[in-house]
């Protein structure tokens, strides 16, 4: 059932989960990766900087860092910057990029924004896109508030050791181990792919990539990391943050029902479903996929979604005390950390949604427009 392993966990009450937990989940599915990329994203790990955008970069050389730093200083203020802790792992081969973290606040001066209706979030999206496309040797890995992405080229156990994940803990983790089939394996191409507070971990391939890419490019996003997953991250940002669709409606646009199935829905839902299919036909992701999507605003949220024909595995779990939600490609990833968990599989093309403070608001087995926000 495909390559690539995905795993995620969330403390539904907002407590903290150590990075060791997600590392164990992902490493248990060792057969799903071949050492060509792995990554982890943590949400809610910088409480002391929760209102600053945390920008993490890969730099190939010092000049790239200087260039990015000058750019950031011109567009706002840097609250704090530091080298992201990494340690040598014997089995990993160079080159290793320099990983740097900036806590950044965009300037409120409107003249920097070109258009006056640009929000802070829009500005951050443009900034990240600009760095990735224009600054040689620099790659913005994550740019959201109170979250960070730790990824690289290697096995999942190498990457977790490289960043020493045990030193971090957060409300939610999402992760991915890679088995690349049709795009290059490099540090920037490892998942999670991120824009703003969105992260996407993806198992599968997007055969409609060309259409989806044009769709997000028309909205101003620029694709620069040579992998199909980044359009999924931009699509979520566009549909939910910019177009303000509820998550379940956005998921329907991404993995819609067939027209003959829509015809059996109640008239009101059928009208909405048809409207979504027509309006967002370019957002439809064709091909086999299962994805875990992470998000921070307005509250830390985890979305798990498989394609409408269920061509990739996806399993959800809840701990016995009901405090922790899990998502993974394989049941063993949940059982290794929670032997007594209750597990289920969401329906094909139907999202499971978990929100910190609210619990599991959708199990993935409901009517398409029930549950969620």
């Amino acid at each position: 059932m495909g390559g690539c392993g995905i795993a995620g966990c969330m403390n539904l009450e907002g407590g903290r989960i150590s990075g060791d937990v997600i590392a164990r989940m992902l490493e248990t599915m060792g057969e799903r990766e071949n050492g060509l990329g792995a990554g982890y994203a943590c949400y809610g790990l910088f409480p002391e900087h929760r209102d600053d955008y945390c920008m993490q970069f890969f730099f190939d050389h010092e000049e790239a860092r200087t260039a990015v730093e000058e750019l950031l200083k011109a567009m706002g203020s840097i609250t704090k910057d530091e080298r992201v802790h990494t340690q040598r792992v014997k089995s990993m081969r160079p080159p290793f990029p320099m990983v740097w973290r900036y806590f950044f606040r965009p300037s409120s001066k409107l003249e920097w924004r070109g258009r006056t209706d640009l929000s802070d979030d829009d500005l951050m999206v443009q900034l990240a896109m600009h760095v990735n496309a224009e600054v040689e040797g620099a790659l913005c890995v994550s740019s959201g508030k109170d979250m960070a992405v730790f990824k690289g080229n290697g096995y999942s156990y190498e990457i977790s050791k490289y960043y020493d994940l045990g030193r971090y803990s957060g409300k939610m983790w999402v992760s991915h181990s890679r088995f690349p089939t049709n795009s290059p394996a490099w540090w920037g191409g490892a998942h999670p792919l991120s824009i703003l507070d969105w992260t996407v971990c993806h198992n599968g391939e997007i055969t409609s990539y060309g259409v989806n890419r044009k769709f997000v490019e028309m909205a101003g996003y620029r694709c620069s990391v040579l992998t199909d997953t980044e359009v999924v991250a931009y699509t979520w940002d566009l549909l939910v943050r910019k177009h303000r669709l509820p998550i379940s409606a956005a998921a329907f646009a991404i993995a819609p029902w067939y027209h003959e199935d829509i015809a059996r829905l109640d008239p009101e839902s059928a009208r909405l479903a048809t409207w979504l299919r027509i309006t967002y036909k370019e957002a439809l992701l064709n091909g086999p996929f299962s994805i875990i999507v992470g998000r921070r605003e307005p509250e830390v949220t985890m979305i798990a979604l498989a394609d409408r024909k269920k061509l990739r595995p996806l399993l959800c779990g809840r701990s016995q005390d009901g405090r922790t939600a899990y998502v993974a490609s394989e049941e063993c990833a949940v059982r290794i950390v929670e032997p007594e968990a209750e597990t289920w599989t969401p329906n094909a093309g139907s999202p499971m949604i978990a929100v910190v403070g609210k619990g599991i608001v959708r199990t993935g087995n409901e009517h398409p427009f029930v549950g969620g926000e």
Partner: protein
Amino acid sequence: MPADVWGERKHKDVRFDPASAVERRDGLVIIRADTKDGEGRMLHYKVLNDLIRREMLAGTRHIVLEGVMGHRYIASTANRKELYIEIRGTPGNNLGAFLDGPTIEVFGNAQDMTGNTMNAGRIIVHGNAWDVTGLAARGGSILIKGNTGYRVGIHMKEYCGVRPCIVVGGTAKDYLGEYMAGGTVVVLNLGGARGSPVGLHLGAGIHGGKIFVRGKVEDHQLGPGATVRPIEEEDLPELLWCLEEFERAFHTSAPKDKNEYVKIAPASSRPFSGHYDPTSV
């Protein structure tokens, strides 16, 4: 990259004796799959399967696997009819692939592709078995107490009276019996789920074999090539045998009133013949 090279690269620093994972107690052979190797990781599935195979060839009849966590291909190609394997934990994908005789009993859930192309024997799962269970099975029984996932029984087949069967105690999802060419699938819905216990595209492309569903099946759920047919006298021995197989496995009783069941059978032996150009063959 060939699988053996990959395995070697991942496990080149293993300095431990795999035999230390085997324990003999009260006439049982217990293999601890969660034994840590030289790098602090669980036994690789290749090592575990080597140990199982070695025990089988030495004539062991009862093997207990403890601490199983995602180990793949457990007991694949095992071919001693008298061998019984008890699994504690969560076996990985392709449990009992190409199984040819033994009985495997899982006390928990199984993952995807359980009984891949199995030939003979029994796989008993005391929990759920997820997607693509029993794909391309050619014989033997797969008995699931709980629910199952998508594409169960895809391309099952039968030949000269050798007939595989899958019995699901709970419910199944879409594409049940897709491209089915033979054998029997039974869905019991013992949990009494509301609505239909099976999903959409039921028996899509079915051209042999039978699916029995205890509960409602609506027309829109049927895939191309599948039809609802009345249960005939000649179907009963087959259905009853499957139900008894389920009863033997879980020491429970299965409903035997044929009026509770719906039979789904192929409309023809070549459902897609109209899609091909007859002059090209």
